């Protein structure tokens, strides 16, 4: 009984050392089971140390040592795997062997076996996907119980003479089993605490970062201006809980929220030297108000006492502005916010860049749209005018009608800033165009419309059908010596219980392949705009039976109308 207490007393010192060590970075790798070489080496070093420590803290008894060496060996195996367990056990075992006594060989063997046991349990749990169990103190307790019983058996088998060994085991078995099992459980509990604190910290950090990222998504894509930065600053202010948040561009304050908002006014020019320096040198500046004194450059009674200034980077290391976090004089910057600041700057920089990219895409789209219109113009226009001037001679009323149609066509064409039109409007555009073309090719062109009336109010991107019809005439029927025929079809189809809209423009020329390069661009834009709106699965498909027909097929899913 006395031995139990003495051993537990020794164990306390041992655990205090473990606790103190847990405060050091050396312990960090032990809180995960990553299997990395660095983690294994850390396991080996730390637990070999504890293994040897366990021997020294042992109590000499009957020419043997009652000790807590097994904790190191088993834990090493548990956290580092069989190889590490074996190595730790062997190291501890050899050290014990060097100290002599009649149980030296038995102890060396048993310690190595204990390390290996821990390692095997580790492998077992990893294979089962139960890594969490490894960190449970109860598991450590049970394993140590088993490990110590194994050790006692090994002593009985290996140590000679048997009488002495039996006597020794009778004396030390209970104290050692109890002490080692409790010790291992407590040791594991220290590691578990460490792990929990670390995870809680990273969880708090990630959840903050994720929340800010989630809330701020898309805001800056509207542009890097006072309105958007104000929203962003508000989000960061709420989520980080810092004293104040400011966002600047290269010249002036764009947004300021928090303490000191009365004199840090958006729109004023940057006066802080720190900010200028951050922009100039593209560097992060942390004025903690202690080592690097911080004083607000605008107002000497400003309550802000420290600032973190991070540059926002555009492409090619160009500084777009800064984001600044402040804390008041009596408060310190939390470590989380210091680390978070840098990530935030990266997030915002990316968002600004994305915004610019989207803006450029939009401009490109618009210029492509203009191109579509420009493609229509000269040839069609002059031929139309020529037709009209001939018709005036014959039938002034018809000529007047054609001029109306031509005006309607150009009016539709001028809708270059409108993203979407209804199919009805698109058909009106086509009809106006066709009226003029029908007059022009009077004797050689026939047109048929077969459009489901239910489709008329659906929205499609502007200039979806017109380029197809124009293409069918320009590169199709206009090249025929015989009569040209164009069909414009619109129908609802159901595939796998989903409804789709199928629009087709069919001509009887079948010349698409021949003229592909010519007509490519206009059709490509139509296809791109549909894919942009409805997804990669949809768009324009050209089918051509040479000499017989060309079919331009537009397919997209039926979606509820919404004003875009």
């Amino acid at each position, binding site marked *: 009984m006395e031995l139990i207490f003495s051993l537990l007393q020794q164990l306390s010192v041992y655990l205090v050392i473990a606790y103190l060590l847990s405060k050091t970075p050396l312990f960090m790798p032990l809180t995960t089971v990553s299997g990395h070489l660095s983690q294994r080496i850390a396991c080996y070093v730390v637990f070999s140390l504890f293994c040897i420590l366990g021997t020294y803290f042992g109590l000499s008894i009957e020419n043997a040592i009652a000790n807590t060496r097994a904790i190191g060996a088993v834990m090493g195996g548990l956290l580092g795997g069989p190889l590490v367990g074996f190595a730790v056990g062997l190291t501890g075992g050899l050290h014990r062997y060097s100290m002599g006594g009649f149980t030296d060989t038995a102890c060396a063997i048993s310690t190595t076996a204990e390390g290996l046991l821990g390692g095997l349990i580790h492998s077992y749990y990893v294979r089962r996907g139960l890594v969490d169990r490894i960190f449970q103190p109860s598991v450590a307790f049970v394993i140590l119980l088993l490990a110590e019983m194994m050790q006692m058996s090994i002593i009985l088998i290996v140590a000679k003479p048997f009488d002495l060994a039996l006597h020794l085991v009778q004396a030390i078995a209970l104290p050692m089993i109890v002490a080692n099992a409790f010790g291992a459980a407590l040791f594991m509990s220290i590691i578990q605490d460490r792990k929990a604190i670390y995870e809680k910290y990273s969880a708090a950090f990630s959840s903050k970062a994720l929340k800010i990222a989630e809330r701020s998504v898309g805001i800056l894509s509207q542009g890097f201006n006072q309105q958007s930065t104000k929203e962003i600053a508000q989000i960061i202010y709420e989520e980080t809980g810092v004293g104040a948040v400011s966002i600047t561009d290269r010249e002036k304050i764009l947004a300021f929220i928090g303490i000191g908002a009365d004199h840090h006014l958006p729109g004023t020019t940057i006066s802080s030297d720190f900010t200028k320096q951050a922009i100039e040198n593209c560097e992060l500046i942390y004025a903690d108000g202690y080592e690097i004194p911080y004083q607000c450059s605008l107002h000497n009674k400003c309550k802000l006492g420290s600032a973190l200034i991070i540059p926002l980077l555009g492409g090619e290391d160009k500084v777009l502005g800064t984001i600044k976090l402040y804390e008041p004089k009596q408060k310190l910057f939390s470590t989380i916010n210091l680390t978070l600041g840098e990530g935030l700057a990266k997030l915002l920089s990316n968002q600004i860049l994305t915004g610019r990219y989207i803006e450029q895409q939009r401009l490109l789209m618009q210029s492509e749209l203009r191109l579509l219109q420009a493609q229509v113009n000269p040839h069609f226009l002059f031929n139309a005018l020529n037709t009209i001037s001939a018709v005036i001679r014959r039938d002034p009323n018809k000529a007047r009608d054609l001029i109306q149609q031509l005006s309607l066509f150009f009016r539709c064409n001028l809708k270059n800033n409108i993203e979407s039109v209804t199919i009805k409007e698109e058909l009106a555009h086509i009809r106006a165009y066709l009226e003029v073309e029908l007059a*022009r090719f009077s004797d050689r062109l026939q047109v048929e419309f077969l459009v489901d009336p239910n489709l008329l109010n659906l929205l499609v991107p502007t200039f979806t059908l017109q380029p197809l019809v124009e293409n069918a005439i320009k590169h199709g029927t206009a090249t025929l010596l015989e009569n040209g025929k164009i069909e414009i079809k619109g129908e609802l189809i159901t595939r796998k219980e989903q409804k789709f809209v199928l629009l087709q423009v069919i001509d009887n020329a079948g010349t698409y392949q021949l003229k592909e390069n010519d007509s490519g661009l206009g059709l490509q834009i139509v296809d791109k705009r549909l894919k942009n709106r409805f997804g990669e699965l949809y768009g324009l498909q050209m089918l051509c039976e040479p000499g017989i027909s060309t079919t331009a097929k537009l397919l997209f899913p039926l979606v509820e109308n919404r004003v875009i």
Partner: protein
Amino acid sequence: MLKAIVIDDELYAREELIALLKETQQIEIVASCHNAIEGLQKVNCLKPDVIFLDIQMPQISGLEMLSMLDPDTMPKVVFVTAYDEYALKAFEDNAFDYILKPVEPSRLAITLTRLKSIVGPTDFTPLLQKQLELIPCAGYNRILLLKPEEIELAYSDQSGVHVICSADLKNVNSTTCSLSLKVLEEKTCLIRCHRQYLVNPTAIREIKLLDNSLAEIITCNGAIAPVSRRYLKALKDRFSLS
């Protein structure tokens, strides 16, 4: 009065131009054609002084048609177009006359004055194609566009130029061609073997040598073409025969 043919695929465009030309009272319209193929036939048989030629027409454009006209009987040409960047640039570069649609009467008057002042044929070389891709032919009640390699033999007689096609071409055996032998010789792969015969060298199956330095060519399709003394040597050289 100048005899003129108007060639344009659009009905109203033809009507308008004809009306304007009639108003000038300087031009006699002898025909109006709605495509280049019809145009070629009419030019060949009516021999106009001038043609008003639209550029954008189905199958054979105005410029392609120009390459198909026999340089010996080439009429004066006035190009008419609504808009064609490339053609207009070519006309500008070579000072060829063209008018834009809708046609302005005062501009047309200038063109007519210029037409009368021109003596001798115009050299259209910069606009001409070196090789023709399609050979317009008129069959019975139909128009054919043959590729040069589909023709085995071409010959002329009093009724015009005829072509005999290769056996690959079903439904077509022989047909009347709108082009002269000279144009075919210059702008296709066909070679001359007789004053009135052209043959496609890839279609020759047999050259039968006869007395008096004459010969006969038998084509893959079984057609026979005479070889005159004048062309026999060139033919032999071509196939490295002595």
